[in-house]
């Protein structure tokens, strides 16, 4: 089984080469964005951690800040470590690029830039990847496609849980216009008899 690498040990490795760059909060290792490259390099090159494989790189919009999430894996020692870097500037978010350490970060950083608008400083080819140049906004941000009156985009609750979303809302189902062949609510027999008489 792949073990989770001990975050305290990882923090010690980082702080030995970049003092104060790492801290542990609620069991998660946070790295300071300014010193990300040297911190991750010490984790990659240290023999105890040996995190040579960048398994995953993505970001999460936490509304007040962005979190860039890295999953680093050691193939020989078979453990994985999750690292996060907080980016507080929402206007022009930027973190250093890890492409100098891991080639595998190349396309994943471009994807995050494309969908979150987080710049990776030092990336050799930072362009939009799925969307075209000039696409308005960054779709995976929580304020993209935010409906009026909504706190953020997303599913606020299960439909049955709120009265607003309860289905069917009385009066919300549009009534189709009546047709002569529709069953009449009352007096339909009278109409039928009249039509038989007329024919």
């Amino acid at each position: 089984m792949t073990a989770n690498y001990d975050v305290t040990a990882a923090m010690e490795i980082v702080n030995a080469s970049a003092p104060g760059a790492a801290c542990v909060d609620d069991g998660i290792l946070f790295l300071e964005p300014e010193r990300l490259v040297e911190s991750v390099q010490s984790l990659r090159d240290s023999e105890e951690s040996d995190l040579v494989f960048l398994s995953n790189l993505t970001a999460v919009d936490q509304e007040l800040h962005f979190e860039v999430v890295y999953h680093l894996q050691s193939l020989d020692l078979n453990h994985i470590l999750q690292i996060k870097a907080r980016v507080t500037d929402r206007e022009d978010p930027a973190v250093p690029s890890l492409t100098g350490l891991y080639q595998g970060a190349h396309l994943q950083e471009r994807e995050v830039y494309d969908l979150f608008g987080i710049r990776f400083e030092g990336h050799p080819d930072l362009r939009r990847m799925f969307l075209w140049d000039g696409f308005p906004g960054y779709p995976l941000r929580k304020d993209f496609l935010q409906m009026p009156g909504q706190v953020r985009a997303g599913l606020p609750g299960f439909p049955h849980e709120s009265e607003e979303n309860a289905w069917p809302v009385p009066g919300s189902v549009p009534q189709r216009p009546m047709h002569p062949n529709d069953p009449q609510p009352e007096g339909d027999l009278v109409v039928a008899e009249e039509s038989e008489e007329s024919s």
Partner: protein
Amino acid sequence: MTTADDARLGIQEDSHLAMQGTIEALTTGDGSEPVVVNLGPQHPSTHGVFRLKVTLDGEIVQDAEMRIGYLHRSMEKLAEERTYTQNIPFTDRIDYLAAMSNNLAYCLAAEELLGIKVPPRAQAIRVMFAELQRVASHAMANGTFINDCGAWHTPLFYMFRDRERVLDMFEMTCGARLTTNYMRIGGVAFDLPDELLPTLESFLADMPDRIADYEALLMENEILHARARGVGVISPEMAINSSLSGPVLRATGVPWDLRKANPYCGYENYEFDVPVGEQGDCFDRFLVRMAEVKQSLKILRQVIDNLPDGPWLADVPLHARPEPGEAYARVESPRGELGFYLVSDGGPAPYRFHCRPPSLINLTALKEMSIGGTLADAIVTLGSIDIVVGEIDR
């Protein structure tokens, strides 16, 4: 063509000269200008709507740049507005050639968030369908790869014959052949139908002969050797640094398989080997996939022999709200390390839904592999990586 014709067609005299100059430069290779050629997006050898922009010096690739996004459906955004169960059909459409593996990876991540234990019969059924999917996907990968090498369609349709039998088994189990939507959070949607196990038995009985046929047809095939050996080589160090996974990584000799390294669904109970290559070239990737099919059949045999009874779906509330937290679950899909990273804020839908796509990340090394080779080799290299554009673009 006379000058009068040129004037009528609106062709200027000097454009003729320019064109002639380009042709001369190309043929002599002296003082030449590189030519940019677009491969795709509509091209049979790009395996989907995928564009490769190659800069050529004569026939030699100087630069290869990929342009993707033609199939971008914004699944990660859409998933944030749908409940955990409603997101399972999206995972089918991420990698439509390995829907079962994608269902599985997503359900594992959601189960990790919800803290659900999966019954043993469901685990065995999941292993069975994940391995059947690997057989089907590798049949497609190897068939189209040989197609790219120049063996037009004959091996491809031999291999489609086997894939068709797997898809028939999917159809009799869950009603769908491609986008299966079979796995559920906590197990699988339906129990196995009565006719599945006899069909699977006959499939397992036939496959060794079929594989022997393919090996006799292809392993010593001179054209395949000439086209694939020593083409698209990558070193193990570079492969690890580029985050490659799956057969592309194992062809370089790195025995990294998540079924062994991080067993899920009880893979630790089955005996199988991890085939690795030596050279890291296109031919080794083909060999690794052929050998993996044999190992999958070996696992399938063990699954049938030890299929436990009992429920196939755990008791999971329909309207599940996980505790705030996050989960990252990975499986060894036919294309490599497929991961789902889910973040929950305690709501009914994932706060963040991210797929780690092996097809996209395996393309990181495409430039490295194709520069210096010919254009025809670049197509073979692209075929050997085995991309699915639905997974690249999502």
